[in-house]
């Protein structure tokens, strides 16, 4: 058992830190932090490309697909250092951490060659087309239909909660190809270029003011047969594989939680009560709450390492525990942040602008206990798959 870096890991960590020190400043936050749209995406694409060139992106991927075959521990070091450096958000995470690993496992050789390099380098942005208005948690009952006609699949239907669809190049779409079979055995996964005719993407306004996700309307959208990933009618395993990787991806939030804890400590240290007489960090009630979230943040980081050692490369149902724990902790910590900011003197413009930033992040935290399988669904998964309780 070793809870410190090996010599090799320590060297790698130093490399990552040095690279970040040389390549990342706060400037991006000022330029693009609150905006949306093409400029921000272009910056983030550039950022992903630089991470790739530095050997930091997709490090644990097989070398054949652009990775370094590195052990999972190194990927965790990258995630941890990016979190500690308040690095830009990873908009490529859907492609890089969810779709690409699935493509490596289940897609054809041709599809791997065609798509993986561009995902790794940030040349393409991907989104996921699973949920529908009537089928969210109960995904297998989805109704978007794909019918084979004259050598092409014609797709009709509607998707929702489609993150980055308005900016993405491709969508990994799940549609029904068989209405006779039991629901989860009649689905097929397709790679759909979002420039295809018949696709209408409408942004949805989120409570945090951003418009990162969309409704997608598909009206006689035609895709070639080679757009199928895996087997026809074998889309469920594609979806489940991706959801497993998605949960692992969201669990990286554990490192972000610890960083968030540091930021909360900093806020409490520098912020005074309204009467100016005490620092927030000296108030007993504040210390108690900070201690509580600090403990959970430590758990989140330790769990990341312990679970990684358990499952090797393939995420198991333990990722549901990480997802449930870290997203709920993230929500609690953001609520605490608003509490702290609320105690400060908001007549001060600087405090007010900080408060606004925290407000946005607080609202975003509500999405995380819902996306990728709600907390309630995660509890079902945990109790059924890890404890063996009956469905």
């Amino acid at each position, binding site marked *: *058992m*070793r*809870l*410190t*870096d*090996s010599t090799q*890991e320590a060297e790698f960590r130093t490399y990552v830190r040095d690279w970040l020190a040389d390549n990342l400043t706060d400037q991006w936050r000022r330029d693009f932090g609150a905006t949306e749209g093409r400029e921000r995406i272009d910056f983030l694409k550039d950022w992903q490309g630089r991470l790739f060139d530095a050997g930091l992106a997709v490090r644990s991927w097989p070398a054949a697909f652009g990775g370094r075959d590195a052990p999972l*521990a190194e990927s*965790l070091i990258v995630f941890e250092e990016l979190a500690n450096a308040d690095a830009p958000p990873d908009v490529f995470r859907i492609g890089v951490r969810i779709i690409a690993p699935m493509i490596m496992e289940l897609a054809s050789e041709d599809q791997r060659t065609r798509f993986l390099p561009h995902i790794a380098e940030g040349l393409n942005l991907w989104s996921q087309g699973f949920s529908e208005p009537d089928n969210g948690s109960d995904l297998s009952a989805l109704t978007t239909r794909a019918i084979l006609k004259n050598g092409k699949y014609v797709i009709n239907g509607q998707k929702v909660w489609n993150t980055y669809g308005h900016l993405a190049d491709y969508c990994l779409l799940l549609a029904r190809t068989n209405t006779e079979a039991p629901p989860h055995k009649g689905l097929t996964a397709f790679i759909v270029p979002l420039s295809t005719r018949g696709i209408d993407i409408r942004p949805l306004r989120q409570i945090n003011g951003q418009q990162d996700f969309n409704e997608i309307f598909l009206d006689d959208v035609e895709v070639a047969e080679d757009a199928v990933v895996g087997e026809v009618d074998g889309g469920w395993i594609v979806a489940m594989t991706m959801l497993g990787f998605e949960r692992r991806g969201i669990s990286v939030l554990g490192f972000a939680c610890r960083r968030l*804890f*540091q930021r909360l*400590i900093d806020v409490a*240290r520098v912020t005074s009560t309204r009467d100016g007489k005490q620092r927030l*960090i000296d108030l*007993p009630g504040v*210390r*108690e709450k*900070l*201690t509580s979230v*600090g*403990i*959970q943040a*430590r*758990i989140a980081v*330790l*769990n990341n*390492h*312990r679970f*990684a*050692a*358990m499952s090797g490369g393939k995420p198991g149902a*333990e990722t549901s*525990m990480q997802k*449930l*724990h870290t997203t709920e902790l993230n929500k609690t910590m953001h609520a605490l942040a608003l509490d702290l900011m609320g105690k400060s003197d908001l007549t001060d413009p600087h405090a007010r602008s900080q408060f606004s930033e925290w407000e946005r992040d607080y609202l975003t935290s509500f999405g995380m206990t819902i996306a990728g399988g709600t907390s*309630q669904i*995660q*509890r*079902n998964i*945990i*109790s*059924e798959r*890890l*404890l*063996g*309780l*009956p*469905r």
Partner: protein
Amino acid sequence: MQFSFTEDQQMIRDTAESLVARSCQMTEVRAFGDGQSDFVDALWQDLAKAGFNGALVAESHGGSGLGMLEAGIALEALGGALAPVPFLSTTAVADLIGRLGSDEQKSRYLSKIAAGQISAAIVGCPDPAHRDENGALRGQWAPVANAESADLLLVVVADTATGDADSYSVNVIEDIKDSCTVETFDTMDRTRRGFGAITLTGAAGVPLAGSLDGDGYARLGAILAAGSAVEMLGGAVQVLEMAKTYAMERVQFGRPIGAFQAIKHMLADQLVALEGLRSLVWAALWAIDNAPEEAPLAAATAKAVADQVALQLAGENIQIHGGIGFTADIDAHLYVKRVQLDRLVWGPPGIHTDFLEAHLEEMA
């Protein structure tokens, strides 16, 4: 990082589990609660023979020369089985004597500890003893584990005479009944007996050759906190298993009660809490052996969470069992009672959370 057990450690785990399954069965634990203690000596000997009692004793003194991680492996198994043996106090005492004792003191005690011939109790951490104006040792502690049966009592004394806030001597008392008043402290935990209220009556015992500085005192505190936390982890693992099994077997409304989300989600939350505790506990034990400057914070975190999670799981185990959980007919109550004592015996409830709050900024 490689946050997993090595093969050797896994083997030690297997040994501990099968030893405890053989030598500490629930029927015997229940009988112990009713006054029968025949099996306890045999269990203590089995633990010694397997090298566990000597985990923190150097090989030159007949020990296994292992670490707190390995001692923790034994403690987890013992906690899960509700074993009535003073493993933690004796282990902590062995560590102190090994570090501070003169050659004569080490020879006098360590091999006997490793061989399972003696057991120990310890007071003064937290709440060190002090000397009064006549230089006599004063102090009072309750409940003290193994107070009534210990062969050795170690007393940590604050050395205020030196003017150094962080200096402690450690006295060894062999004739406990002559040196202090030991009053029986009957508790709800019938899986352990011999808790006592100890009052020093002035007699000193013999100080160990070396003394403890702040780091040494903190190490002792970490051993007791992390050791208690891993014991409680063992119990928590068992009650979750018990609750899960019952939820799968008990049929009401035409299906196992584990099929209802109220129960399912409760158990899911329990598992998440348990896994969090596990991460903290093993990180703390590792730190004691490998990163001593991190150990006090790590151990306090593990113990603070153990106090809360072990109680939660033990209590919810009763809730899931319904009426029968409230009877003496099943074992659920034994775990609740044990946890209540565990929350008391190494410092008052909340002391570890208080420590964390005081060191909040170091947690970041």
